[in-house]
């Protein structure tokens, strides 16, 4: 018997690993990163021992945190179109200090329970009436309980996406503000009735801490000199970058060109004036000559 015990344990572990890869998805996620859960969708319902194993964790206290390991567990619950909430999975996370003080949750993972027969039936009902599949998680995972954060999705959208779900968990200092629950595929309206090919949830989790806004960009002469807001944009730009000195030609071309034209005009006129005393007289004679000829 003594020898048997380790062997059984070994086989049980093997079995557990096997089920873990097919029965429910583990999702490792880091901030701002889509963590994909590597698991092949299982077409057949998971065998009994798998679900037993999966229920082991929920059997633990509601959500326990052990100070040594800094690990936190809290439940994911679901409801089908306004029914009572039931256990749907367990999140595990690690506590770490937050940059804004307090504690933050990291390395969030979810072990999703497979749908039971009754739940599947309820889901089918939802598909028929185009109802909502609702999930909830405690707002404060460190002391799970009363205030819950709720999120819903049309069951048909989940079915269209073949139970591929995205969970955006918005957190702030260890509190969950909201869970964005969406299906992994487009879900245009009107939603068609489609049954999922498999009954295994394919979960992708992202934990979002929120980004910090850009602060106001200071100019070089900015804050220190109690930057004067009365200065207009142009003035500011002028202070920042004095415009390069223009060449003489670039500055005064508009005066030089007309001046040149006037001068040239005057010169030609003067030149014409000098010619004029002789030329017009000759021209006149030439013009009159043929007339005189005609008269004759």
């Amino acid at each position, binding site marked *: 018997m003594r020898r048997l015990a380790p062997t059984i344990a070994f086989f049980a572990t093997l079995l557990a690993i096997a089920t873990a890869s097919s029965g429910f998805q583990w999702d490792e996620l880091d901030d701002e990163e889509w963590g994909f859960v590597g698991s092949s969708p299982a077409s057949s319902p998971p065998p009994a021992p798998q679900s037993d194993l999966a229920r082991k964790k929920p059997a633990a206290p509601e959500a326990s945190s052990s100070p040594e390991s800094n690990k936190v567990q809290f439940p994911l619950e679901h409801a089908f179109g306004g029914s009572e909430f039931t256990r749907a999975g367990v999140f595990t996370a690690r506590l770490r200090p937050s940059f804004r003080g307090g504690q933050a949750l990291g390395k969030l993972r979810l072990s999703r329970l497979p749908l039971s027969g009754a739940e599947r039936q309820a889901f089918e009902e939802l598909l028929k009436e185009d109802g909502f599949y609702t999930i909830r998680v405690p707002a404060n995972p460190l002391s799970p309980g009363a205030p819950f*954060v709720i*999120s819903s999705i049309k069951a048909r959208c989940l079915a269209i996406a073949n139970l591929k779900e995205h969970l955006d968990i918005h957190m702030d200092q260890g509190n969950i503000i909201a869970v964005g629950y969406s299906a992994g595929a487009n879900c245009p309206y009107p939603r068609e009735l489609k049954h999922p090919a498999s009954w295994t949830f394919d979960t992708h989790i992202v934990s979002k801490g929120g980004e910090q806004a850009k602060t106001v960009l200071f100019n070089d002469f900015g804050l220190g000199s109690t930057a004067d807001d009365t200065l207009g944009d142009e003035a500011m730009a002028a202070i920042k970058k004095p415009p390069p000195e223009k060449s003489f030609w670039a500055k005064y071309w508009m005066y030089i060109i007309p001046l040149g034209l006037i001068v040239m005009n005057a010169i030609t006129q003067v030149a014409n004036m000098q010619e004029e005393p002789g030329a017009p007289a000759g021209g006149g004679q030439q013009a009159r000559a043929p007339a005189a000829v005609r008269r004759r």
Partner: protein
Amino acid sequence: MLSSKGWDPCLETSFLHCRHQEYIGKVTHAVFQTASGKKRVIVATEKSVVASLNLRSGEIFWRQVLEESEPIDGLQVALGKYAVSLSRGGSLRSFHLPDGSLIWETSLYTSPSPAQLFLLPSDDLLVLKQGIVYVVSSADGRLLWTSDLLDESRLAQTSLSFEGKNIYVAGFSGSSLALFRIDASTGAFTTLKTTEPLNPSSFVLSSGVFAALDTQGNIVTGLMEAEVVELQKTSLATLLDSPVSSAQLLPDKIPGGCVLSTDGGSIFVLGLDKKGVEVLQQIQGPPVVSNSIVLDGTFAQSFLQHINSKEIRVRVLSGKEWIETAEETVEVDPNKGGVQKVFMNAYIKTDRSRGFRVLIVGQDHSLALLQQGKVVWSREEALASVVDTLTAELPLEKAGVSVAEVEHDLYEWLKGHVLRLKSTLMLATAEEQTALQALRLNNADKTKMTRDHNGFRKLIVVLTSSGKLFALHTGNGGIVWSRFIPELSTKGSLKLYPWRIPHKHVDENAVALVLGSSHDGTGFAAWVDMLTGSVQETLALPYSVKVALALPVVDSSERRLHLLIDDQNKAHLYPTSDESLSLFEKYMQNVYFYIADKEAGQIEGYNIKSQVDAGEEGGLVFQSQKIWSVLFPKDSETIAAITTRRADEMVHTQAKVLGNRDVWYKYLNKNMVFVATVTPQDSRVGAANPEETWLVAYLIDSVTGQILHRVSHAHAQGPVHVVFSENWVVYCYFNVRNHRHEMSVLEVYDKSADGKDVLQLMLGRYNASVPFSSFSPRNLEVKGQSYFFPSTVRTMSVTFTARGITGKQILVGTIGNQVIALDKRFLDPRRSADPTPMEREEGVIPLSEGLPLFPQSYLTHAARVEELRGIISVPARLESTCLVFAYGIDLFFTRTAPSRTYDSLTEDFSYALLLITIVVLVVAIAVSMVLSQRKELREKWK
């Protein structure tokens, strides 16, 4: 503290389109000043305004707007030349009667507790605050003496009277009555004892005698001269000769007497003196009692009663025996509700007899002067407390309807044009200029009651906190109609909704839905015709309305379907017809709404589930189900602002073409909600730690509850002001570290359409006109940028134009009570320090840390809209122009053209000049043609 005098910048030549109206608010105190010089009445109002009104016309001589957070507790006129006001925070201010300038200011205490202000016979001022007496010199505001009657503990419901050199004070200390006698010159006080302990239900003091009602139905009186006051008990039943089950002494002061009201509705004037108490007068029905005035050594007082809704009986009792000396019946406007306050004044008539005038404050906050049996003037002070507005189109001008009376005749028209021509050619004399100015201002075109081509003439329907509705004409700001709905005056939150805006049946009138709802779980709805003001229907709701949703569905008579969400999150559908039910059932699956609870720090989203039995009250009731919630951690975030896009906003194009020929698609989700949360903290100045104050901005899809974007601003503190338009949000807050206000912008672009060409956008599924599902995942890009804003913001709004082509301006109401129009291009998140030539071509402005305020961008010019609370913008039919209505204590209306008036000529464009120029040109052409022909002929003959 701000003051304004009668100068109106809107009367200046260059600002023809603006209208500025000054108000003061509901009057709480009034003192007549008729002794010498100008006849005036000094008033203090609920809006913390001290004003001097012309007693002949009701016009404002001057007014001073004090801090709104500190209501005015008392008003007196001292030394015949100073108006002295006492604010809740203990500030005593003295204003010069002729011009309203501040003479002196004294701060007596800082606690915001109610107090009373009295004028001593020595013309000094006495402030009584919960058992502490302050006496202040009215010449310079110096504190003469102060005495604390009860160390540490408080005196409640205090009352005070003077007799000779003594001041008598009474008040509740716990449940028993405490009596004091104070020497007026030194402030030394004596606590008076009574022969029996007193635990009355109500009491009054009058000229050194007090009267109190005890619980056994006796009236107890006592003379407060001796140290130990002897009490005299008289049974009310024997005094009034009839059994009385309950009675109350009114706090209205009558010298040498008091006023007793009984449950029978009658009022008894009782005389109090050393001998005891006697009934002087009995008045049937509950009247409103005025202040008392001194007349020939005795007193006079007026009592007002409503005979019916149209008539008021004014009775003046005077003399030692309280004989009725005057009685008048005055016809009043039934649209003003009951009389709430009366102030009386006496004057000498031309025949040397004595006349009385009374100033009455109506239930609708209006102020009116009654004299010689008539309403001499009245002021609509409800307009100082506008809570919501709607605009209504005027009826179309029809061929059959004659509008000739308001039309100019031909001569007038010609004269106007000649004047304009002269003014253009600078030939006009000063007289002609003023004539032209008057002509422009009183242009009958502006005030016509019909629609104009440009859509400038509209009715602004305003709802005021008094429960009175007004329709203001945009042409001259005049009141077209007003309607007082008494049921609304008791409701806390009031809102207006467009119930029916006719498009098909254009000859029918638009209807507004007015909703009032109070915390006691009841509501009230009224349907009001927006053109005539007639109330079509009223409905008392057995629930309070949390949210009202206007659905994008109208029935066959163009009534918009509305859902009223009650406190149990049940949805009530109106109108309650079968047609609306069948219309609603089609859309029911897609109706989502959200409820924000600021106290709990959460927002919850709901969907309509199914119809339920309405029970006794009937109607169409639907059950909702909660589908999402967002919960902000209570210790680090409280909701500071929630804003959505305006449902009727027009967006011209979804695509934004950049300088480098890239196309970005605006994310135009109408269900997007902007929420700003700030770190909760105590509001004391300087209490904020810059390192621990945050503002977090969220963009939430209100259908799915998805947080589309979340960004936090360090060192930011509320209050937060937001505008949300198209695909962008601009919000303003205070930066604690930099000690400056900042404005941030977020622009949301849909990147799921990337890589699609414009043809696909036009035909395909990325078109904004094609519905999209919030349940489909979206790839969004949010661009943000922050700038310093050099002014403090009171409120923010944005311009709306008819088709959304024109650029946007952000309308900022500043702490100086002015409206600034700030071009949205300054708040472009793509501004960079050195824009590329392509960006420059596109019009991107180089980055600067601050937003510029140009003097030209002040829409209000030099006018100030005191206590500015809201700015509304309404599109005109002309695309370039938008009408702007700002309200606070004052009202202000103007037009703005964010991208200049590119589609119209200016209003005073001289058509005559154009015509003359053309005629002259044609004549010149004809003459020159003839001349040239002649010349040619002459040439040929040569």
